[in-house]
C-alpha cells in the first residue's frame, strides 16, 4: 500500500528518526529540494546513518536523490542503496533515458553491495510537460519502476499555469497519469498538497484523486496522513461488498467453478482482484477466516 508517502528533510535528524511514528505507508528521505547546496554532503551521510538503523516500523523507505542533471545523484545512490533504501525517487524524469541511467547505476551498486539485482525500485517524478507526455514510455522503461508521480509546482510552471486551490491546471495531467500507470502496470501516486493548514482542501483533493484511481499521495506534513488514510480507506459498504465477492470467489474456486454471481452481478477475476485490494486497503487480511454476512465462518 502506498496511500501516503511522507517527505522527511534529509538534514533533520529528529524528523528522519521519528517520521515513521506517524505511520505513513512510506517514507521519502529527501536529499533534493529540502537540503541546501552547502548541506548536501552532510545530509547524505545523515540519511545513510539513519537508514542503517533500520528503524522505520512498517514503512516502505525510499530516498529522493538529486536529479541526473546534477553531479550528486551517483553519490546519493551509492550511499543510500547499500544502507537499505528500498527505492529511489528520481526528480525531473523527462524521458526513458533518465530511468535507464538510474537503472544501470543501481545495478552496479547492487552487485557491488551484494543486494539482489533489481530489488531497488524507482519512483519517477514527472515534473515537466515532456515527462508527462512520455509517462507510459518512462513507466515501462525498466522493471524497477514502481510508480509515476506528477510534479506540483515545477510542472505547473512548465505548463505556464499557476497552482490553484481547485487544482484545475493539473486535472488533465492526473487523468493522463492514471491511464499511463495502469497501462504500464505501475502505481499512480499523486503530488503533495502544499497548504498544510487547510485540512478541508486536502480532503477534497484526496477524494478527487482517489476517485480518479490514484493509489495514494505524497505528504509533506505528518498532520496530513490521517486525513488521506481516512479518504483512501474503503467505506463500510465497499468493505462489505468486497468481502462478499472474495468469499463467493473462494467458494466457487473450492468447488472448481470459475465465474460466480454476487448481488446479481457476474464476478470474474479482475473484480475479485479489485475486491481483494479493497480489503487490503481496509487493513483486513483476507487470508484469515472472516465473518461472512450470514454469520458463517469461512476460510
Amino acid at each position, binding site marked *: 500500500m502506498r496511500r501516503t508517502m511522507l517527505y522527511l528533510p534529509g538534514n533533520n*535528524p*529528529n524528523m528522519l528518526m*521519528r517520521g515513521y*511514528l506517524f505511520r505513513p505507508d512510506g517514507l521519502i528521505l529527501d536529499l533534493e529540494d529540502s537540503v541546501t547546496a552547502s548541506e548536501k554532503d552532510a545530509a547524505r551521510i545523515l540519511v545513510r546513518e539513519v537508514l542503517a538503523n533500520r528503524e522505520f516500523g512498517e514503512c516502505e523507505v525510499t530516498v529522493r536523490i538529486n536529479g541526473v542533471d546534477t553531479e550528486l545523484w551517483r553519490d546519493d545512490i551509492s550511499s543510500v542503496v547499500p544502507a537499505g533504501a528500498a527505492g529511489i525517487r528520481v526528480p525531473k524524469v523527462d524521458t526513458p533515458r533518465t530511468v535507464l541511467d538510474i537503472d544501470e547505476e543501481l545495478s552496479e551498486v547492487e552487485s557491488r553491495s551484494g543486494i539482489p539485482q533489481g530489488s531497488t525500485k524507482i519512483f519517477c517524478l514527472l515534473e515537466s510537460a515532456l515527462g508527462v507526455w512520455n509517462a507510459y514510455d518512462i513507466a515501462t522503461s525498466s522493471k524497477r519502476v514502481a510508480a509515476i508521480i506528477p510534479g506540483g509546482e515545477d510542472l505547473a510552471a512548465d505548463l505556464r499555469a499557476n497552482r490553484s486551490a481547485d487544482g484545475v491546471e493539473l486535472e488533465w495531467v492526473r487523468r493522463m497519469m492514471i491511464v499511463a500507470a495502469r497501462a504500464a502496470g505501475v502505481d499512480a501516486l499523486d503530488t503533495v498538497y502544499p497548504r498544510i*493548514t487547510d485540512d478541508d482542501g486536502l480532503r477534497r483533493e484526496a477524494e478527487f484523486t482517489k476517485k480518479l484511481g490514484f493509489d495514494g499521495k505524497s505528504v509533506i*506534513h*505528518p*498532520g496530513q496522513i490521517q486525513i488521506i488514510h481516512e479518504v483512501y480507506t474503503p467505506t463500510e459498504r465497499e468493505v462489505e461488498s468486497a468481502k462478499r465477492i472474495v468469499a463467493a470467489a473462494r467458494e466457487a474456486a473450492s468447488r472448481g467453478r470459475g465465474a460466480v454471481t454476487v448481488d446479481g452481478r457476474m464476478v470474474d477475476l479482475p473484480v475479485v482482484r479489485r475486491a481483494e485490494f479493497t480489503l487490503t486497503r481496509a487493513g483486513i487480511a483476507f487470508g484469515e477466516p472472516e465473518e461472512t454476512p450470514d454469520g458463517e465462518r469461512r476460510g
Partner: protein
Amino acid sequence: MALNAVHRNIPESIDGYGDTSGRLFEGAFARQPEGRKHGAKLRSVLPGGQQKQLKGIKEAIAASGLKSGMTISFHHHLRNGDYVVNMVLDACAEMGIRDLTLFPTALFGVHKALITHIGSGVISRILGSVNGPIGVLVSEGGMVAPVVLRSHGGRPRAVMAGDVRIDVAFIAAPTADSGGNISGRFGKSACGSIGYAFTDAEYADCVVAITDNLQPYPISNVSIPGIFIDFIVQIDSIGDPAGIVSGTTRVTRDPLRLMIAKYASRLIESSPYFSDGFGFQTGAGGIPLAVTAHIKEGMKRRGIKASFGLGGITGYFVDLLKEGFVEKLLDVQSFDLDAVKSIASDARHIEISADWYANPWNLGSAVNALDAVILGATEVDRDFNVNVNTEADGALLHGIGGHQDTAAGASLTIIAQPLLRGRIPCVVDRVHTVTTPGEVVDALVTEFGVTINPRRQDLIDAFKEARYGDTVPFVPMDELVVRAKRMSGPMSPIRTTDRIVGVVEWRDGTVIDVIRQIERRLQS
C-alpha cells in the same frame, strides 16, 4: 552524608540551609505534621484609626519596619509583566537595606534586574524558584546561600510550619480599596486569581498591597480581605498587561506533540478513573492543552462530564466550563484573558489559594481530589523519578510549580514528553535531580507510546484491556531507555563541584535532593 529514600547523598549540614538530620526524604507521605501553626504578629486597627494608604513604596517599606536581614515575599501572578518585585528591591537598595531573604512564589525573566541587587548584597538568599539568567547565576555559584525550592503546596506548608517567617509581604494588587480589600479580577493589570498570595497575607508580620487601581471602600469580589492588609500604596502601573496574560492559548499543531497528547488521553480513557464526575488538571503547555482537547472528545464519546478542572486555568478550560463538559473550575492562577474574564463573571469559576490547591498539611488540599494530571519533565529515569528543575547541563532553570503536589495527590499521574528534545534524551538511567519521586508517578507517555510504572499493574491491565493495539503502543521502560540512548548517542556527564547551590524540598519539607554548582562554562 546520608542517603535519602530516593538514594541521593545529602550532607548532614548545608551551608546557608542548616541541619538536614531528621529532614531527609523518607517517602511521599512519610512525614506528618506535629505541633501548632506559626502565625503572624497580632495587630489591630482602632475604629476611625490608622490610614492604610501611604504615598509610595519607600514610605511603605519604612512603615513596615523592614530592616536588613529580614525576609520579604512576593507572588508571581503578574508573571513576566511584573513591575513590583523590581521596584521594591530598587527602593530597598536606595534605602540602604541589605542582606534580604527573597521569598517569591516564582521569579520570571523580567526579574533579571535583581542580579544587580544580588551582586551588591541587597539580596543574600532566595527561597523560591529561579530561572533564566538568575538560574544560571545561581547554578554557577553566584549566590552565597543556596536557593531553596519548594512546590506550590510546600511553600504555604513551610510558612505555617514555621520553616519560613515572612517579615513583610508585598502583594501586587490589580484592584484595592482604601480598607485594604484586594482583588485580582479587575483593573488594567487584572490577572484573575491571586491564589499564591493568600498564605503570605495571612502569615506575614506586615502586609503591603501595591495597586494601580484604587477604588472606594468596599470593593466586591474580594480575593484577600483588608483584615490582613497593613498598608496600601497606589502607583501608576504594577505591570505590563502584555506580559501578565497571554492573548489566547492555542493547542499545538506540532504533530509529534499532538500524537503524544492523543496517547496520553487514550491512557486516561482506559483507566478506571475516567467516569462521570472525574477531576483533572492538564496545565497550559502545548501537550497538556492538546490532551484537554482529546479528553473532551473522549467525554463526548463516553457521555460523561468532569466535576472540576484544577490548577492554572486557560481559556480552553473556560470553554469546557461553558460547554458543560466541566462543572467547576478551581483556579489558583489564570493564564489568559479568557480565564481572567471568566473568573470575574462566573460563580462556577472559583479562586483558590495555593494552600487550598496543594498544601499537604491541611484538611482539604484540592490535589487530593484529582483523578488525573498531565505533567511535563526535563528528565524521567528508570525508577520514574522526575526532574523538572535542572537542564541537561545541570543548570537550575525551572521551579517545581505544582509538580510534586499534583503527582502526589492525583490517582493517575502522567508525564507527557517527547523522548528527545533536540538530541537531548528525556529518559535516562538516573535523573540529575529528583524533583518528584517515582512512587507518585504512574506513567510516561512519549511519541513511542505509553510506558506504565510496573507498580501500577492495575493500570497496565486496564490499558491492555482497552485493546488499542498498534494505535497506542505500549513500551516498557527498559526499551525506552535503550531507544533514547541509541537516538541521542553518548552524553557527556555533567561536571559539578561539591558546593551546594540549591536544595530541593519535597512538599513535606524534607530534602529530596540537592543541586551542586556546575563548572563554569567556557566563555565564547
